[in-house]
């Protein structure tokens, strides 16, 4: 009797499990639903392929992928920074994809050399400064922010923040651990308040006079400049963007990117989706809707991004940032960067 019941239950759930839709693709996304869904809808309209999505923190999604193993339903892992992509590849959760379309769309420094992941949009961590209190000619590089001249004038976010970790990882890659640790200590000494809040909070803190310069991602400034809320627009108008390290290596860039999972049951659709996200109109959407820079060259970025002018981007291999991520966190711990 018991045996029969067990068989029945297992059998019926089996039917459910085997019932995999052929024309669908499943995404684990670190990108918030709000910031990707419109594109996914367009993809479905275009191809007829249904898109299923779960959002969440990148590392936890990676953990879920890892635990689910070869049975994981996920076909695509989408993250908002390079370190997670690197980590997923290290853990063997991604598979290489060879696609001429992807290769041609994404510059070599913003994709994995063997095709495990591809950048989809660019996010630069730059300096914002108070227009009325800072002469931009005094600003030069990330490194120079540790100068005592900036004592009690710098605001940053917590060192738990992935974007700060990537930035410090890039400094380690360029300047070495010792120099970067010395820099971090100098920067911590210049903090005008303990690290806290988010990037928009930092911009508001500069606007209100709590600090004179801050390290933020460009698209938050873009979002505030175009906000529905008057106070946000007002705060954003009091600060200006400075592209650091232009003389030599260029400003620090991170990517939001994606790779096809090792367990993917819809590999074809997954690749198709990545290609779709790199089409010209999708790339322009990233720029217009969320003020991120298109990873593809030659896309019209819209007025907000245009006003920030031309810039040089650091063309370090992004993998380097992934390699140095843990070291960056330890270094910030040692420097007392909370």
């Amino acid at each position: 009797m018991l045996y029969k019941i067990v068989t029945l239950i297992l059998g019926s759930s089996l039917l459910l499990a085997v019932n995999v839709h052929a024309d669908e693709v499943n995404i684990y996304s670190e990108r918030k639903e709000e910031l990707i869904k419109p594109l996914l809808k367009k993809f479905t309209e275009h191809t007829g392929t249904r898109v299923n999505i779960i959002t969440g923190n990148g590392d936890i999604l990676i953990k879920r992928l890892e635990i689910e193993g070869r049975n994981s339903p996920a076909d695509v892992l989408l993250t908002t920074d390079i370190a997670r992509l690197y980590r997923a590849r290290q853990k063997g959760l991604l598979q290489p994809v060879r696609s001429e379309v992807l290769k041609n769309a994404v510059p070599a420094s913003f994709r994995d050399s063997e095709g495990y992941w591809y950048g989809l949009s660019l996010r630069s961590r730059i300096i914002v400064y108070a227009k009325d209190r800072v002469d931009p000619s005094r600003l030069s590089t990330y490194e120079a922010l540790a100068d005592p001249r900036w004592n009690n004038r710098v605001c940053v976010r917590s060192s738990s923040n992935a974007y700060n970790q990537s930035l410090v990882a890039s400094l380690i890659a360029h300047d070495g651990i010792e120099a970067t640790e010395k820099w971090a200590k100098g920067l911590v000494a210049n903090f005008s308040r303990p690290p806290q809040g988010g990037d928009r909070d930092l911009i508001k803190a500069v606007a209100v006079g709590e600090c004179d310069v801050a390290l933020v991602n460009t698209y938050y400034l873009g979002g505030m400049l175009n906000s529905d809320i008057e106070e946000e627009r007002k705060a954003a108008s009091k600060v200006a963007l400075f592209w650091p390290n232009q003389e030599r290596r260029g400003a620090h860039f991170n990517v939001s990117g994606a790779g096809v999972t090792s367990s993917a049951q819809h590999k074809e659709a997954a690749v198709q989706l990545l290609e779709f996200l790199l089409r010209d109109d999708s790339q322009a959407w990233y720029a217009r809707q969320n003020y991120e820079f298109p990873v593809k060259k030659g896309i019209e970025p819209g007025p907000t991004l245009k006003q920030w002018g031309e810039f040089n981007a650091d063309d370090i291999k992004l993998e380097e940032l992934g390699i140095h991520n843990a070291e960056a966190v330890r270094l910030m711990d040692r420097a007392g960067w909370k």
Partner: protein
Amino acid sequence: MPVTGTRIFSPRIYGNTLPSFRPRVFLLISISALLSLPLLVIIGSFFVPASDTWQHLSDTVLSQYIVNSLILMLGVGILTIVLGVIPAWFVTMYRFPGSRMLEWALLLPLAMPAYIIAYTYTGVLDASGPLQSWLRDITGWGFRDYWFPEIRSLGGAIAMLSFVLYPYIYLITRAAFIEQSICALETARTLGCGPCRTFFRVALPLARPSIIVGLSLVLMETLADYGTVQYFGISAFTTGIFRTWFGLGDSAAAAQLSALLMLFVMVLIFIEYWSRKQQRYHHTSSRYGSLTQNRLNGMPAALATFGCSLPVVLGFLVPVAFLIHWAFLTYADIVDAEFLTYMQNSILLAGCAALVATTLAMFMAYGKRRDPGPLTRLAVNLSGMGYAIPGTVIAVGVMLPLAWLDKSIDSFFRAEFDISTGLLLSGTLVAVMFAYMVRFLAVALKTVDAGLTRIKPSMEEAGRSIGVSGFKLIRKIHIPIMRGSLLTALLLVFVDVLKELPATLILRPFNFNTLAIRAYELANEERLADASCSSLAIVLVGIIPVIYLSRTISKSRPGHDTGT
């Protein structure tokens, strides 16, 4: 007949067999084992060899994590007792303008998620917020010309958590005050104790076990909080766990940190247990006269109204006012058909979880009572530990055994029938519900347990002597008497699940959203205004049962209906 709190059941009455051989006990222990499985997975991480991450942590930040978490617990503990116990005493014992409304209004902050209140207050009190901007406008000061308390600080976090957690203490303490025999209080009065001394010498000691139950819930919530401390940039234990995992990429060390966190909890549970044992006072009379509430007039009345409404204003009215203000700006873009689906998902999930948790709690508390012994006590205590563990950590603890089960079934079917069953449980609502039970059973268990101790064994004996036993006994005696406690358990779990974020976020199936997920995703992008509609919806859905519950408790005083 005198009732002496805890040790009232002798094994002689309930049979001679060892408890562990009864099927009922076996079931109880199985459930407890199942629920502690995720925690054991985490504790098991201790046996993974420690990496050099530990050396780094103890050299740099570990002491900070511990100290900050302790300060946070101390601060929240003191503030919630003040905000919870004093109003509970006043609304129970006195009549003053607004006291009837405050009885239920004091529970309202229960519906407010901690991270939402933190985001909201920051939006208001921040240097760039409306308050300080206005201050600068009228005085002409610059930012550096004045001092203003920094909201994103340890003190700020203590305040935020206390504003939303004090209702646990208020709820349980008020129930205790209501149940106190009027005789004890009147005797105190006839012996010449003033109201103040009656409170400190009689009412407070009698209510102490209840206060401690509430306090331990509050402190466990405080330990598990991640949203608030993370946003405020405080290096607490939870932020440390996630930083070790995400930043250092060392999930083993992160699990070991979580196991260390559980040590904290065990200490808490022990203190609670010890304190109950120390309890020297018991109700000595079962005669409940109707409570006469003294009317306050003039200055005392004004003070009482002001003091008792303060927690409601701070924990509810102020944040809700700002949320409404923001919701007006954004609702057109946010509230659509999908929004209603989120709401429906939230309610269904919370409702199911509340029912399952209360049923389980009833079963376990009753089991502990029928078959007392170290084994059952340990089993019941273990299944309540998850309350202090951050949802994300529990989620991982839930995923691992479920995935193992799925994999075993899959391998079996692949080998025998050459078909893959894939994942049967992982990534379904079963996993989500499992995590809720691990995390929130403690709430239901404590409430139900407290209610159960109020039923005298003589009542059960009387029932048995006329041949009523088993489930019928529970239905005829326990459920009617414990109605208040059961409803409280239902409500607390409902509201907790409604607010729950991290476990739902990571364990949910594809395309499944709740209000809490919606609110968090937008607030996390620092789009506070856009998050306001979802936050308000959480609060609104939570308020309805809160008010209903409060009315039930007011009526639950023994003798209320019959007027004896």
